[in-house]
C-alpha cells in the first residue's frame, strides 16, 4: 500500500492521534467524561471496558460521527474540536462497525471497491461514459482491491452479495473495505464479536499482519481479554465513560481499579 496522500508524515512511535479532555453526553446521559489518551504511530491500541463504558462513543468521536461537547482531538498535528466523517476519511481514518455496516445489496468486490472512493479522481463525465481515463483508473484500482481480497483470503466470495454471507465473512469484507482506504489509522469496533475460536484466530492474524506489513496504526475495541492481551501494545480502560487505566497489557491487568470494574467491588 502507498503512503497516505494528505497531511504531514508522522514518524513511527510519535503521537498520531490524541484525544484531550473529551466529554460527550446525550441529553442527561454522560457517555464519555473528560477522557484523554493518545495513539502512537504504528502501535495497536486497545480500548476496553465493561458494557456501556463509552468505548464505541469514543470511536465515533474519533471518526466524526459524534461531536463532543468538550475537548479536542489532534490528528497528525492538526487540532480540532470536532471531526467530520468526511474529513476523517480524507485524513486517513478508516473504521469497521460493531454490528457490521456493509452495503448489503452489493457484492464483496463492490463493497471493497467502494472503500477506494476517495482514491479515485476522474470526474463525473468521464465516469458517465466509462471511457478513457476513467476506465484505466477503474482497472488500476481493481488491481489494488484484488491484492486485498487475496490478503484476506476471500477470493471465493468476491462476486457474492454480502447480505448472504455468514457473519464472520461479512466482518472480513468490512475489514477489506476499510483496508482499501489505505488508512493511516484503522479503528476496529469489536472485530471478533460473535466469532468462534477459529474465526477469532484468523481475524487476529489479519490484524497483526495489517499492523506488521503495512505499518497501519490500529485502535480496537474488544471484549475477549485473551485477544486484547495478545495483540495490543497499549491498553486504555474506560468504565462508565471515565478513563480508569492506561498502560501496557501487564500494567492494566494488575490494576486494582480495572479488576474492580470487571469483577465488581464488595460493598
Amino acid at each position, binding site marked *: 500500500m502507498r503512503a497516505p496522500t494528505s497531511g504531514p508524515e508522522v514518524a513511527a512511535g510519535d503521537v498520531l492521534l490524541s484525544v484531550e479532555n473529551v466529554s460527550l453526553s446525550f441529553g442527561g446521559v454522560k457517555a464519555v467524561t473528560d477522557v484523554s489518551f493518545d495513539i502512537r504511530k504504528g502501535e495497536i491500541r486497545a480500548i476496553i471496558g465493561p458494557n456501556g463504558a463509552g468505548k464505541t462513543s469514543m470511536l465515533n468521536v474519533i471518526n466524526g*460521527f459524534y461531536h463532543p461537547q468538550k475537548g479536542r482531538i489532534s490528528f497528525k498535528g492538526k487540532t480540532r474540536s470536532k471531526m467530520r*466523517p468526511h474529513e476523517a476519511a480524507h485524513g486517513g481514518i478508516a473504521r469497521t*462497525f460493531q454490528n457490521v455496516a456493509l452495503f448489503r445489496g*452489493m457484492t464483496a468486490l463492490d463493497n471493497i471497491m*467502494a472503500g477506494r*472512493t476517495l482514491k*479515485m479522481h476522474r470526474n463525473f463525465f468521464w465516469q458517465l461514459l466509462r471511457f478513457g481515463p476513467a476506465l484505466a483508473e477503474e482497472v488500476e484500482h481493481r488491481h489494488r482491491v484484488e491484492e486485498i481480497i487475496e490478503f484476506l483470503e476471500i477470493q471465493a466470495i468476491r462476486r457474492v452479495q454480502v447480505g448472504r454471507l455468514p457473519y464472520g465473512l461479512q466482518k472480513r469484507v468490512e475489514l477489506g473495505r476499510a483496508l482499501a482506504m489505505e488508512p493511516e489509522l484503522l479503528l476496529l469496533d469489536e472485530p471478533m464479536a460473535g466469532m468462534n475460536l477459529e474465526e477469532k484466530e484468523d481475524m487476529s492474524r489479519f490484524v497483526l499482519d495489517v499492523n506488521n506489513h503495512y505499518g497501519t496504526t490500529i485502535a480496537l475495541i474488544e471484549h475477549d481479554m485473551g485477544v486484547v492481551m495478545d495483540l495490543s501494545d497499549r491498553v486504555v480502560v474506560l468504565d462508565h465513560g471515565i478513563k480508569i487505566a492506561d498502560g501496557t497489557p501487564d500494567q492494566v491487568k494488575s490494576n486494582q481499579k480495572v479488576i474492580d470494574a470487571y469483577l465488581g467491588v464488595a460493598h
Partner: protein
Amino acid sequence: MDILYKIFIDPFVQMGGAPDLLVQTLWEGLVGGVLYALIALGFVLIFKASGVFNFAQGIMVVFAALTLVGLHEHGVPAYVALALTIAVMFGLAFTIERLVLRPLVNQPDIILFMATFGMTYFLIGLGELVFGGNPKIMIASELGLPRGAIEIKMLGGFVSLQKIDIAAAIIASIMVTVLAIFFQKTRIGRALRAVADSHKAALSVGISLEQIWVIVWFAAGIVALATGIMWGARSDVSFALEIIALKALPVLILGGFTSIPGAIVGGVIIGVGEKLGEFYWGPLLGSGIESWLAYVIALIFLLFRPQGLFGERIIERI
C-alpha cells in the same frame, strides 16, 4: 358461452385475421411502454440512492418541459434553451438538497416522502406563476427531432411508424444503457448504491451524502427533461402530464423499485399490455380500460412476485 367466446377466442381470431393491425398495436404499446419506462427510471434513480419515493418526479417532467418551451417562447434559440434547462435542473437538484433533504437527514422515509409531496405542489405553483397554466406546444422540430411517419408494407397491410416514436425509443435506450453501466461499474455509481444501502458505512469510507444526492436528483432531472420532450412531442406540454407519473407506479411494482432493467421491462409490459387490452378486449367492457388495466396487471404480478420482476428479494432472519 357467448361471453367466454368473446373473451378467450374472439380477440385471438381478430389478431390472426389482421396481423398488420396486431403489429401496429404492439408498436404503439412498445413506444408508450418506453416512455413509461423513462418516467419509472426517474423514480428508480432516486429510490436507489436515497430510499425515497419521489412523488415529485411527475411534476419534474412538466417543469423541465415547461422551462424548455417557455425559454424558447422568450426568443432563446432551441439548443441554448435546452442547455439552459439542463442548468435549471441542476439548480433545482442543488436547491432540493440544500433546503429539503439536508435538514431532513436521518428522518424516517415517510417524512421524506411527504416532503416530496410538498415539493410537487410548490413546483406546480411556481410553474404556473412563471409560465402560465396554458398548454404549450413542444419545440420538437426545432430540437431536430424528426417528424412524419414511415409506412412499412407487411403482412398484407400497412404498419405506420411515427418517426418521433422511433427517435424516442432510441434516445430512451441510450439513456438507459448509459445509466445502467454508470450505476454498475463506476466509482460514483458505486457510491450511489452505497449511500442507498447504509448512510453510516458510506460516510465512513468518505462518501459525501450531499454530493451524491445532488448527483442523483440532477440525473433524475435529466431523465425528466428527456421524458418531458418525448411526451410533449406526442401530445402537448401541460400540467395534465403530471398524472402520467402515476402510470409509473404499476411499472415500478412490476419491475421492482431498485432495478433499472426492471423499469424498462416493466414499462414495456405495461405499455404493450395496455394497448392490446384496449384494442382487443376494450370493446367488451365499453372501452376506456386503458386507464386502469395497468394497475390490474401490476396487482396480478404482485400476487406472485411481491419484490417485482427484478427487485431484490428481501429475506429477513427472525
